[in-house]
């Protein structure tokens, strides 16, 4: 962790000073109101869930584990008791730096106090025969307050530490943890019902039972995250393998993917569509594998038949990825990425708005990357030259809106054309073929393809 700026340190001190007396007051006030065995068992449980929680990512189930126990304290040991128990966070085993530990404990105490206050004010009490359904109301209110105070304090420290606007952090935390708090927080109520002697009377052993579904949920979230990452890496590695066919397109797929995302963000595309577009960009040239190597690597003029073979690659790409269900919209992007706004492109000769949005985005990113990387027959053009060329072709070949979005994004965020490839090609001898002179992605060449003539 970077050294905290002074303001952030002061904030931590203020929060700690505010929180420190609370458990003491609560202990004095609440003494004798709660069962000692329950109290100790809950304390141990808080330490345990906090310790395992800290190792995982900040997924919602992590938040859930400790908040389930924390919220179960309310009906079990009352408001005062739960404030005292919140301080157990301090001894959680999680190798945090001292500042962080102090802050976390302090904010847990404050959040617990807010939760306990709203629980008590709304008439929340221990579980009895007449508790339900009314007890659900103060319980939910306590969850909400707990969540709110926690979110605000976290937003405060992140803002002071990293300069991120408070509102952004707050919204981020809330979006990520609301369902965790309310959904899994309800397990806290169930834990209390199971545990309480006036409830099902299972006692501390009920924690074992309740943690099973929680752990399984946690496992599923972890698996999902892991698999998602594995998937990404697999697609990247396989596309790199596809690119080993041609030394000069190495890293192309990944850069087109990145470029497409730049455009999508600039025009404010919805996040799930951006994700789909990212894969579309990655896979847009997968159909080139269907073009005979002989044609791809030919150094002389191409015959009409050979042109036709090259023009088939978007269709073949579509053919390959057709079975990947979630790529839905991405498929259209792959199939039509060589269409032109003026209708002179291939494979269908669509024009203007008839061309799927993904395809229009990819076309721009594709051409831009093709121009700014080294090809056998020419060196890389500068970004400025490429921008001029893109502007020249806007309206005929490209959608002008996306051209401007790309240019704006490149000018503000920069562009690094030579992305390090994921790995070095294992066989270079296969690539020592004469370099080709025809580049189907280059707009200057694309023009000649559109006109249907040989080079």
């Amino acid at each position, binding site marked *: 962790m970077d050294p905290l700026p002074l303001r952030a340190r002061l904030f931590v001190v203020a929060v700690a000073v505010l929180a420190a007396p609370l458990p003491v007051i609560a202990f004095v006030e609440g003494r004798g109101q709660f069962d000692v065995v329950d109290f100790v068992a809950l304390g141990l449980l808080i330490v345990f869930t906090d310790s395992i929680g800290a190792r995982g990512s900040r997924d919602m*189930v992590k938040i859930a584990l400790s908040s389930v126990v924390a919220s179960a304290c309310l009906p079990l040991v009352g408001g005062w008791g739960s404030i005292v128990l919140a301080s157990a966070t301090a001894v959680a085993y999680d190798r945090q730096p001292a500042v962080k530990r102090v802050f976390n404990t302090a904010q847990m105490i404050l959040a617990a106090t807010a939760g306990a206050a709203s629980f008590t004010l709304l008439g929340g009490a221990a*579980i009895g*025969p007449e508790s*339900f*359904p009314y007890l*659900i109301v103060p319980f939910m209110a306590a969850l909400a307050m707990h969540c709110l105070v926690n979110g605000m304090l976290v937003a405060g420290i992140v803002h002071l530490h990293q300069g991120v606007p408070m509102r952004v952090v707050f919204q981020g935390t809330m979006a990520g943890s609301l*369902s965790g708090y309310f*959904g*899994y927080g*309800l397990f806290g*109520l*169930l834990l209390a*019902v199971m545990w309480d002697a006036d*409830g*099902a*009377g*299972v*006692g501390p*052993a009920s924690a074992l*039972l*309740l943690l099973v*579904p929680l752990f*399984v*949920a946690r*496992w*599923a*979230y972890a*698996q*999902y995250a892991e*698999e*998602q*990452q*594995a*998937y990404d*890496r*697999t697609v*990247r*590695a*396989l596309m*790199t*393998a*596809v690119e*080993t*066919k041609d030394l000069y397109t190495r890293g192309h797929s990944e850069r087109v993917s990145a470029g497409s995302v730049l455009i999508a963000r600039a025009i404010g595309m919805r996040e799930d569509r951006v994700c789909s577009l990212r894969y579309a960009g990655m896979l847009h040239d*997968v159909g080139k594998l269907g073009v*005979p*190597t002989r044609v791809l690597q030919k150094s002389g003029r191409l015959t009409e038949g050979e042109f036709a073979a090259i023009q088939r690659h978007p269709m073949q790409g579509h053919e*390959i*990825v*057709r*079975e*990947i*269900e*979630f790529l839905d919209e991405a498929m259209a992007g792959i199939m039509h990425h060589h269409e032109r706004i003026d209708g002179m492109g291939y494979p269908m000769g669509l024009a203007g708005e008839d061309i799927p949005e993904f395809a229009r985005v990819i076309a721009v990113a594709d051409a831009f990357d093709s121009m700014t990387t080294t090809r056998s027959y020419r060196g890389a053009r500068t970004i400025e030259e490429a921008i001029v060329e893109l502007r020249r072709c806007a309206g005929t070949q490209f959608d002008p809106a996306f051209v401007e979005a790309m240019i704006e994004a490149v000018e503000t965020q920069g562009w690094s054309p030579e992305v390090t490839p*994921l*790995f070095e090609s*294992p*066989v270079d*001898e296969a690539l020592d*073929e004469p370099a080709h002179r025809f580049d189907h992605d280059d707009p200057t060449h694309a023009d000649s393809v559109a006109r249907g003539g040989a080079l």
Partner: protein
Amino acid sequence: MSRPRARFEDPGTTGTVVVVASGCLLALVAVMVTASPGGFVDVQIAVAFAAFIALGELVRITLPGGRDAAPISTAGALAYALLLRWPGEDVDHGALQVVSVTVVAMLVGVAPHVVGGRAPSLESMSRRLLAVGFAALLFRGTELAEFVGGLRGAALALVMVCFVLATLVVDAVLAAAVQAGAAGAPFRAVLRNELQVQVGIGSAIGTTGALIALAASIMGVWALPVFVVPLLLTQFAFRRYATIRQTSLQTIRALSRVTELGGYTEAGHSRRVSVLALAVGRELGMSDADLRDLEYAALMHDIGQLSLAEPIPGGATVVAAPGDQRRIAGLGAEVIRQTGVLDQVATIVDLQAEPYRRAHQIDRAEVPLASRIIKAVNAYDDLVGESTETGRRLEALERLRLGMAYEYDPTVVDSLSKAVDRISRLGA
């Protein structure tokens, strides 16, 4: 799901028939008994649980690995089977009422799926009904009921968990029996796979069932909505996990065809090799996780050919020189290893060209089973291709047998010929 599953679904096997028939019989008897005068008690509680079960059936999911499941419905049905008390009263519905309520609720919940053309398999529904019936009969219908009725608190929870565990085992055994019959796999291996599934989501379903039953004794009907929220969240996580697994597999399948479009291999080769390899792997009792690696490796076993300047004629690696075969395997493994997450798969692909008996490398560990399977299946498909001629099939198997004990693992060739036999019979 309309997608062809790389799994041999043979609806005619005895196991499936027995399970479905017993399920239907149980449902029929239960409904008849419950519908008779005085057979239906505590209507409100029954309706509440029926709603819960129906909802669970409505939001059914496909688990990672392709198993059909309706966790919330199962948990609800188990809870109803284990329910002894309600605030202020004892609950004394009989075991057959549990079965009737469950079956009616399941049918209601499944109806929209049937209308939408996504009917779940009759076998999985029957199996779940049988498991619930088992729990209900054991818990409510036997002498045990009296003993259990006197329990409270932790002791009751413990007994409930034991019942739930027993139910899960019954469910796993039924599932394994059906599958073993269908795939020709050894029962023990399939049972192990099924039990592994139960350890994960099964234990969550089971404990949740017990928890609902206990909580409902205090909270009454309110236990159901309070439980359903976290359960839906968890199920959502499983759904996302299953989806990404499915997407991964679809992507690898799609990309495995890249070598075909590039003219490196014959059309459909990777797909056929993966289907056949899976059949052999299943017959040899491989675990679910190993089968998944095997499928990936089989799909990508020729990816190394992409690095070749000149395609091998017909893409048949079996006719290439052993040195070349190994080089291609190594190149493919290199590509797969770059993903950083498929190391197992890379190793399998790497060693696919190694002969079964490697006299020159006595000190090296054995070639993995998956590699041996891919080696034999790949050779078989190179020789037979899309042909369905019996003569060609037998000729190819004969050629593999000649290479047995040196090139090919005899047990693998054995299973392969059985699998080929079964598939050709299914196709006929």
